[in-house]
């Protein structure tokens, strides 16, 4: 292993990940490209890819990690070729763009390394502060909305940013915000859904506030697929309901949706919120709000309380969607597997003496939810992100008994694109699980939408076929498809393709988990 340094250049991490893959396949060996930030160097060191040369690289230096036999000139030329495609204008130093663009912008999407987010976003807020503009209805009653996709932002900086933003009438969605749908515009990983902003002119709909990216995707897709309408899908960032952040963005969003005449009822979704903050939220809603609020909070114990005035606690996303749709006279229809079918599956699996379920999730919210549902049937399950800390798998790379894995965990994604885009690790792990003689069921999610993998059928079907062969077709494969018929991938086509290949497909994650729980319980 050696390092090559290309000094004084900068490329964003998503581009470098794509380029790493391209080069790896062109040169048929593992190539890793990263900028020389402290965080990246630590990552490379952990993976044993950093040499003393790379150790000395600066923020503006590109570190190329490759096997010793790779020719330096050749790889540099390839990089130049590909980066030239990325920036087709010219290779003469580019002149700076006028930074005053923030004086006219009102929606900003930020995807820069987390360690720099605080300073750059602060600059933007200060720019807004100096402008004499009024909060606008079309911007959720704020002067500007800032969507921060970046993660690894220290929580203290998130708190400072959100408070500064609030003072200046700016709404911050994030950091670590995977999805939002604002005025019908999808940000990050969003699905194409019906909104009140469509030209069709829908009069009213459901507003969603979500701390989880796939949670928001699952909720909006389910509502859409039943014929429901969305008003806004506001992402808050994964830590908004933590003690330290205190739900700043959630409360700002509630204020807007409460005043928005098109929003009839509101779903609030989060994983593992702080009990204190949820109580604060409930007090706020019951004191100041008149609309119906449905709280779907994974890992929050409401002490058996189902309802406090206009607040309803729904255990799962499915329950929340079902309840919300009732306001529009729509009945939610999750995928149902009949009792006889379940018995049939159980009988067949029993013969094989296989016992355990393995889950491979690209969506963190969906993963938590599946574990929550399974718990009712088979108790706690093992995971890299378990609900019960005693059930953490000893090694991230080995499953044991019932194991549900969140593939979006940092340990798997370092230096790679999100598992919703890059299926390579999931494919690898799927084949590994298929060779385990104790595995009875493999369940996974397929998340569609803008930005997600454009062709999951092509990516996964061959692997599933191969996996089936490895286990003599004894393992049962189940998949939940999150998406709509308006998505570039089209949920109908994806569902049909997987069903045809013998994968049991579901339109709701909860429905899939319930089915799997019922089956595995009886093995």
């Amino acid at each position, binding site marked *: 292993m050696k390092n090559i340094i290309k000094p004084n250049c900068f490329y964003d991490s998503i581009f470098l990940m794509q380029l790493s893959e391209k080069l790896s396949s062109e040169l048929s060996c593992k190539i890793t490209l990263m900028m020389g930030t402290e965080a990246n160097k630590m990552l490379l060191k952990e993976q044993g890819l950093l040499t003393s040369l790379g150790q000395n690289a600066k923020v503006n230096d590109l570190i190329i990690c490759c096997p010793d036999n790779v020719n330096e000139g050749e790889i540099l030329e390839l990089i130049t070729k590909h980066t030239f495609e990325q920036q087709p204008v010219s290779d003469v130093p580019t002149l700076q763009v006028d930074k005053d663009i923030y004086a006219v912008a009102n929606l900003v999407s930020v995807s820069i390394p987390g360690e720099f987010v605080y300073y750059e976003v602060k600059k933007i807020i200060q720019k807004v502060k100096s402008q004499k503009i009024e909060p606008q209805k079309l911007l959720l009653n704020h002067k500007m909305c800032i969507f921060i996709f970046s993660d690894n932002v220290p929580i203290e900086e998130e708190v400072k940013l959100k408070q500064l933003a609030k003072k200046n009438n700016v709404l911050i969605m994030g950091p670590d915000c995977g999805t939002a749908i604002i005025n019908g*515009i999808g940000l990050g990983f969003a699905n194409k859904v019906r909104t009140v902003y469509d030209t069709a002119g829908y009069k009213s709909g459901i507003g969603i506030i979500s701390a989880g990216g796939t949670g928001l995707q699952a909720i909006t897709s389910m509502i859409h697929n039943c014929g429901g309408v969305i008003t806004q899908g506001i992402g808050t960032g994964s830590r908004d309901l933590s003690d330290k952040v205190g739900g700043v963005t959630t409360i700002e969003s509630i204020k807007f949706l409460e005043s928005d005449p098109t929003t009839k009822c509101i779903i609030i979704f989060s994983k593992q919120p702080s009990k204190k903050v949820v109580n604060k939220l409930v007090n706020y809603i019951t004191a100041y709000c008149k609309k119906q609020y449905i709280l779907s909070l994974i890992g929050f114990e409401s002490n058996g309380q189902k309802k406090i005035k206009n607040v309803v606690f729904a255990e799962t996303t499915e329950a929340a969607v079902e309840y919300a749709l009732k306001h529009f006279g729509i009945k939610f229809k999750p995928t149902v597997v009949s009792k006889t079918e379940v018995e049939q599956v159980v009988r067949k699996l029993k013969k094989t003496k296989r016992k355990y379920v393995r889950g491979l999730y690209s969506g963190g919210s969906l993963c938590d939810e599946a574990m929550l549902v399974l718990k009712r049937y088979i108790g706690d399950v093992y995971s890299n992100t378990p609900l019960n800390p005693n059930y953490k798998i000893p090694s991230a790379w080995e499953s044991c008994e019932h194991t549900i894995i969140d593939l979006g965990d940092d340990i798997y994604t370092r230096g790679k694109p999100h598992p919703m885009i890059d299926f390579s690790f999931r494919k690898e792990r799927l084949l590994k699980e298929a060779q385990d003689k104790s595995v009875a069921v493999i369940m996974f999610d397929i998340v569609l939408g803008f930005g997600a993998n454009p062709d999951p059928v092509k990516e996964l079907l061959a692997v599933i076929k191969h996996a089936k062969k490895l286990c003599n077709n004894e393992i049962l494969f189940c998949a939940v498809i999150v998406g709509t018929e308006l998505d570039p991938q089209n949920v109908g086509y994806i569902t049909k393709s997987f069903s045809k290949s013998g994968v049991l497909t579901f339109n709701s994650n909860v429905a899939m988990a319930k089915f799997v729980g019922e089956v595995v319980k009886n093995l």
Partner: protein
Amino acid sequence: MNTENIKIVNLGAKWFYESFINQGIKNVFHLAWSPQGKSKKTYQLIEKFNSNKTLQHKVHCANVSVVEKLNSAEPFVVDIEQAYKVIPGMRKDLILHAGPPIEYEQMCGPMKGAILGAIVYEGLANDITEAEKKVLQKKIKFSPCHHHNTVGPMAGIVSASMPVWVVKNLKYGNYAYATINEGLGKVLRFGANSPEVLRRLKWIEKTLFPVLKKVIHLAVKNSHGINVKTLTSQALTMGDECHNRNVAATNLFLKEILPYLIELPISKKTFLEVVKFISSNPHFFLNISMAACKSTADVVEGTKYSSIIYTMARNGVEIGIRVAGLPKQWFTTTAGMPKGLYFSGYTEKDANPDLGDSTISEVCGIGAFAMAGSPAIVKFVGGSPDDAVKYTNEMYKITYGTHQTYLIPQFNFRGTPLGIDIIKIIQEGITPIINTGIAHKQPGIGQIGAGILYAPVDCFVQAFEKFVETYL
């Protein structure tokens, strides 16, 4: 969908921009982002600086006075003399070089070539091989020109017997020095050291030097010497930027000295040789201009609280800067690679990294900073005169003032950008633009092209961090 009123900025990954476009949204502006060499620590120091009004005021006052000093300089050529007689600290076994300090072993090809040539020229060795042996035996010492009130283009080699221009800043009384420009093609400053190169150096010492010395004496008697500032300001309005293009300035200089030259009791042959040598070298004026800039910039060294640079120089391996408020401290980083035009038969693969003290020009508001007034120069980057205007305009964002004498006609005679401020560089994310010649990376070949580049940002980041830590 009604999204006309939503105006989106995408800061960071282009992937998100494409996702907006795929949704049919039109009001999206993509802003590529780069840390510009800044680390978390740099950002924290920017925060501290921005919130300290007292410090900001002190820095402002210091910088205003520095710009004033740069503007009020009066550089005159007052003499021409052999280096060992005038340059402070110059000795027979000492060789000066361009850029920040560097050991012989680390030097680039052209610099090594020029040094070996200079050793032979000085008679310290009979040939190049013997010269190298002397160097390896540590019998020769090296020091940056900048440590001796001197500047040198490209390799910037100055040895004891070389005649040097003596420029005096009449306003402040300080001196600066630079060698006589040898011309184009195979020359010592580009690392060439063949007998022909050394013969020319000897001719300069034996024939040209005595003549010019007398010329300058007459000029001093007549009017304090040769006023470099006047020649520069005239040349700027005649299409020179006085770094990579010195055609007009060289002609003006020749015109200036002709009356004195004619007065001298020298043979017609010598007269012709001297005039031919000067007029056939469009860069003859460069070294005079550099010495004038050096005498201008040295005055501000040690101005407390000033964040303006008074040195920017490259040794072919590293680029280094020095800041007025942090005197005598070099901040260095790997030298950049110019983008440019190559003589036929050469490509970027043959090029040596950026080299020479000539960036003292940009420090004093000429060179690339005055490019808008020198449209012919942009052919080096394959750009248009519009690009030249853009580059100069951009430099106003990182300078503290404008030049009172060096004016750009098509900017309604606005002065060139003057006083490169490291704080503005960090806050704006823009580094100084540099015009430069390009040397072959092997010694002995010489110039292979000319081009342009932005100075690498790292040395400015280091300087900024040290500056704020020093004065906070």
